[in-house]
């Protein structure tokens, strides 16, 4: 992936149970310092998504790395950025702690 160039990535999620599940996901970027350069244009995260029993879906993320990443001396040794998602089951009345997201 080249900084500044938009890119597409896919994750896959499966609901192995026999009940529909409503999930919501949040993400993490390592190394930590690279996270500020990671810009999501569109993704499946932050909103509740429903997976039916046994359903398997592709979950796309459309993003780019801020071109200023290339100018940051702290990033000079970073050639691998890992994006991970954690899915939580959304329960009625439960608000997830999402710092910084209003």
């Amino acid at each position, binding site marked *: 992936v080249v900084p500044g160039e938009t890119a*597409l990535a896919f994750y896959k999620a499966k609901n192995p149970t026999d009940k529909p599940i409503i999930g919501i996901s949040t993400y993490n970027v390592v190394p930590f310092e690279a996270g500020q350069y990671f810009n999501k244009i569109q993704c499946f*995260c932050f909103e509740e*998504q429903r997976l039916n029993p046994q359903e398997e879906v592709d979950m*796309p993320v*459309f993003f780019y790395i801020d071109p200023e990443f290339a100018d940051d001396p702290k990033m000079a040794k970073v050639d691998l950025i890992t994006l991970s998602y*954690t899915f939580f089951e959304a329960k009625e009345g439960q608000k997830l702690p*999402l*710092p910084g997201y209003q």
Partner: protein
Amino acid sequence: MSTAMNFSSKSFKPRPPDKGAFPLDHFGECSAFKERFMQCLRDSGYESGACRQHSMAYLQCRMERQLMANEPLEKLGFKDLIDEKPEAKPEK
């Protein structure tokens, strides 16, 4: 419970996506486009830049099926691909 959040002095602040969320493609309407894109990645040794034509086709598929808000492709970073091929859409 392990989560993505750690409460150290440097806590990671997730930011929402610029253009919001993709609805799920429950019926796999765009799976074929995704497969072509993934195959391209495998063939190119996971060079994202080599497969941008396929990622553009995938997003176009979504837009045509109301799985993504319509957005001019130039604004999604595909301006150079549009200029190259003014009329043609990828075949198949």
